[in-house]
């Protein structure tokens, strides 16, 4: 690893000014779990690292009934997994966070760092999409908010400008009668990068599904909601046949990656089966297999 300057700003404005000053020669460091691997392999050799550990604006995981959940960008994955408000209002997210990576990485890796890395195979972006997450971004002068789907631009690419950083993720309070699930499909049990990740959220009352949100990650350049599959079940009483139709639609509308980890055809087949299983469990239908 080539040596670098270690910069320790104490506010968002100061951190952003440093980023402006150093430009492409600097990298922000939150927990650092992914960045350390890139540094060690010399995939990146920045002249300076800007630590985000001293920024109070990035801390804190807070719930309030009107505004929902604010996840400070420096929130550790383990904090998301254990926070009582997350378990109560978004149990699917608590489940997701409890199974990310491994315990030591969850004690170091942050939610904000994960999202800024833009790796489509990690869990948070897919899981957060179905809760209509918004991201709060700042530079030295101002802040802006945008939907998470607009933040996730391309493979390992986000909407952040070079002088901007992610301050927090905001989730609106979940609508009434919601249920959610999150699942990964691994090619082998020993793997920790999923081939397919599926997040679902549905509103169900008196046997009718008034809303379905379905996001697929790990098999496209960025995780995305699949609106065609969602429409199959929205406003209907869920049945095994409709779930199968939604799974077919999801496989069809997915813009599938085609790489060494799986061909586009294989990924579509695994999306179909994972979506079918997840929706079957979400709507508590008998498993046809």
């Amino acid at each position, binding site marked *: 690893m080539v040596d670098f300057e270690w910069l320790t700003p104490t506010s968002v404005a100061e951190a952003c000014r440093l980023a402006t000053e150093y430009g492409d020669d600097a990298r922000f460091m939150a927990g650092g779990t992914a960045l350390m691997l890139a540094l060690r392999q010399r995939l990146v050799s920045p002249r300076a690292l800007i630590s985000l550990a001293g920024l109070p604006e990035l801390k804190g995981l807070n719930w309030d009934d009107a505004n929902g959940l604010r996840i400070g960008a420096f929130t550790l994955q383990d904090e998301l997994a254990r926070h009582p408000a997350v378990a109560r209002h978004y149990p699917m997210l608590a489940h997701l966070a409890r199974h990310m990576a491994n315990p030591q990485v969850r004690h*170091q890796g942050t939610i904000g760092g994960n999202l800024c890395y833009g790796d489509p195979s990690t869990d948070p972006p897919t899981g957060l999409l179905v809760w209509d997450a918004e991201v709060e971004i700042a530079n030295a002068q101002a802040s802006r908010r945008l939907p998470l789907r607009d933040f996730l631009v391309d493979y390992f690419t986000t909407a952040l400008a070079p002088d901007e950083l992610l301050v927090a993720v905001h989730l609106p309070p979940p609508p009434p009668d919601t249920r959610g699930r999150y699942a990964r499909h691994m090619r082998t049990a020993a793997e920790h990068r999923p081939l397919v990740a599926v997040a679902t959220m549905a509103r169900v009352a008196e046997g009718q599904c008034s809303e379905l949100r379905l996001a697929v990650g790990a098999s496209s350049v960025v995780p995305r909601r699949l609106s065609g599959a969602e429409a199959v079940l929205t406003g209907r009483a869920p049945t095994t046949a409709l779930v199968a139709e939604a799974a077919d639609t999801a496989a069809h509308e997915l813009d599938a990656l085609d790489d060494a980890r799986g061909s586009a055809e294989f990924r579509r087949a695994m999306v179909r089966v994972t979506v079918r299983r997840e929706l079957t469990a979400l709507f508590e239908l008998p498993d046809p297999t």
Partner: protein
Amino acid sequence: MITSPRLHPLAMTINGQPVQAQVPARRMLSDFLRDDLHLTGTKRGCETGACGACTVIVNGRPLKSCLSLAVQHDGARIQTVEGLADGEQLHPLQASFERCGGLQCGYCTPGMLMSACALLDRTPKPSAEQVRQELSGNLCRCTGYTQIVESVLDAAGATHGN
């Protein structure tokens, strides 16, 4: 022109003792502990965050010391495997690993002990499933894990090992 890297002053508490040092920004926590402080109980295994042999406890949280820089932990309270025993008196986890045969070659053992120690600090009476979950970031290529899990449960007073 070769210039020596700038050194950053660090103040930490390691195994209850105050430590002051000067390190370049690129010094990894694992190398700082082993090469600068000669605390060689912490092992370098894969050095890619997969195996967990380098696990230490930082401010109560088990971390992989190969995945972070020493400068990230200025001011921290760090526990390594050297801090477990009290003189000649083994830590209950060390005693149970010995009693239950929780190790063979021993290379993963310091990391296993530190992950288990962090678990028991938080959850004094874990289930076998919780032990397996919390040790899932530590790889052992010898034992097949059964006796490691038994060792941790034994230390927690939950069961008796073989």
